[in-house]
């Protein structure tokens, strides 16, 4: 086995925590799962915690005051504490559970449309996003600006796959109300300079919304540790990419901002008093959590983040870097293969999109799949970034804390095989 500095020392033990990794695929092949940027696999402890909750503590929360209700409420609110600790959030009340990252981003865009006063987005206002965003951080802002008459603008990309900040002064102006961008690109792997952009946006009084869907799984985050000028106002991530279940996402927001925004969805839990003639609303976080929340999902997410905390986000980050570096070396041996995005693996996240000359990404992914190697092919919900590089789609490998160098070897070998299968080169 290859020895790489930075690799998780107990990698084989970590892998044992993930039951799916023992699965074999068609033809008895072992699973080589390199699609973690799409969704991560789940450790046993997450599954067991959810099962225990469903089999022993299931009840609705907040509203039920019997023993099961108290247990379920405690477990749910403990999960909020865990998320707050994971993000280093200044206050637990600033943590709002949503169904995924997409809903969290839409929540912000929607409430800005209906906000009153300062925060309201309307004609003449500018919202700034970037060309490397996931569709979930583009479409909500398109809908918002189309519906309110505001203008959507965006940072372009350099040929290297970095944000092109050269025209930042034209984009971030007194008219700019919102600046939103991804911390780590799910396609290019790029890690963006959060502090720098946030500081600039704050100078003009714009709100900063950070999509941490790819950052939360692999980078240590400490909101309270950031200087206030550099700290985003709102930040989202999604449970299923941080070894948690589907059906749960997180919106963190600065208290004053959340308090100033109107409600998003109306219904049970988010109210103070309901009269037919009109209602008043609960304080944060409940104001933004209408209806029965994703209870067992929050409990599962709590277990997931606790698990990541035990392994250590610093170590996971180092592991991802080691694997990414190793993959870069391997990919360089495949003729006709071009990596999209930054060339230096040390400044990237753990997702690598590439093209293989003469073979369409679907066909690459298909041949890889038959060899047990699971990657993603397509535009990875980042069509504009693909368009920017003049490609319609790409193949993406993405690693995580359970990825081994041997799995990268299997990928590289399968890529060589793909070339020979399609008789290219």
């Amino acid at each position, binding site marked *: 086995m290859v020895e790489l500095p930075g690799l998780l020392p107990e990698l084989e033990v970590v892998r044992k925590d993930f039951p799916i990794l023992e699965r074999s695929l068609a033809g008895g092949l072992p699973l080589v799962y390199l699609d973690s940027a799409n969704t991560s696999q789940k450790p046993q402890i997450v599954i067991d915690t959810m099962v225990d909750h469903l089999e022993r*503590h299931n009840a609705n929360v*907040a*509203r039920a*005051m019997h*023993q099961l*209700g*108290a*247990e379920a*409420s*405690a477990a749910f609110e403990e999960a909020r504490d865990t998320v707050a600790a994971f993000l280093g959030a200044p206050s637990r009340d600033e943590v709002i559970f949503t169904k995924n990252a997409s809903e969290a981003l839409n929540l912000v865009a929607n409430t800005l449309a209906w906000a009153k006063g300062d925060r309201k987005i309307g004609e003449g206002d500018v919202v700034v996003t970037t060309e490397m965003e996931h569709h979930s951080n583009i479409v909500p802002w398109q809908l918002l600006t189309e519906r309110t008459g505001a203008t959507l603008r965006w940072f372009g990309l350099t040929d290297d796959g970095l944000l092109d900040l050269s025209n930042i002064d034209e984009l971030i102006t007194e008219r700019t109300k919102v600046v939103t961008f991804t911390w780590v690109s799910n396609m290019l792997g790029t890690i963006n300079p959060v502090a720098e952009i946030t500081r600039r946006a704050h100078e003009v009084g714009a709100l900063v919304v950070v999509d941490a869907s790819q950052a939360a799984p692999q980078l240590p985050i400490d909101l309270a540790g950031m200087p206030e000028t550099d700290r985003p106002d709102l930040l989202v991530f999604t449970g299923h990419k941080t070894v948690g279940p589907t059906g749960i996402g997180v919106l963190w927001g600065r208290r004053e901002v959340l308090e100033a925004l109107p409600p998003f969805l109306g219904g049970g*839990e988010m*109210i*103070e*008093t309901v009269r037919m003639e009109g209602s008043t609303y*609960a304080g944060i976080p*409940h104001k933004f959590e209408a209806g029965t929340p994703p209870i067992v999902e929050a409990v599962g997410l709590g277990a997931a983040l606790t698990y990541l905390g035990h392994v250590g986000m610093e170590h996971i980050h180092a592991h991802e870097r080691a694997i990414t570096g190793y993959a870069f070396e391997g990919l360089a041996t495949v003729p006709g293969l071009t990596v999209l995005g930054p060339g230096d693996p040390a400044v990237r996240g753990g997702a690598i999109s590439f093209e293989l000359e003469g073979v369409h990404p679907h066909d690459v992914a298909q041949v890889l799949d038959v060899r047990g190697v699971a990657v993603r092919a397509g535009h990875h919900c980042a069509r504009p970034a693909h368009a920017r590089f003049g490609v319609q789609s790409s193949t993406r490998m993405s690693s995580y804390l359970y990825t081994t160098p041997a799995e990268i070897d299997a990928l590289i070998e399968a890529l060589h095989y793909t070339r020979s299968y399609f008789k290219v080169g």
Partner: protein
Amino acid sequence: MSQQATGQDLDALYQEIILDHYKNPLHAGLREPFEAEVHHVNPTCGDEVTLRVHLGGPEGRTVEDVSYDALGCSISQASTSVMADLLIGKTVDDALAIHTEFLTLMQGKGTVVPDEEVLEDGIAFAGVAKFPARVKCALLSWMAWKDATARTLEGQAS
């Protein structure tokens, strides 16, 4: 795992003092004069309290009156009654100290030993702390009082 109750705890929860205050609440009703009136709700169950605060005395730093109109369970009703009786006549600073003491007791999950010197009848609520779902009931009017007092002080300042 369960922090919840058994039969004995029920008697700890519904102490005689609590049931007495519930049946015969002290200082109930809304009275004049007052500087601030607030309306607080427990959204979970619908318990409500409308509460008025009147500060007076030297520099307006004495709790001259706490009057209220409250709808709710025995715990929330009794807590309101006990609170009004405890705080009326105290200085604002003393009242705030009592408030803190009561809050600590309620949030202690049953581990805090209450100080009868400070809390008087309020020590009867020690058992409530073991019932997480009921802590909010006991705190509803205390939170309302703090809110109303803060508003009154703000009013004085401006």
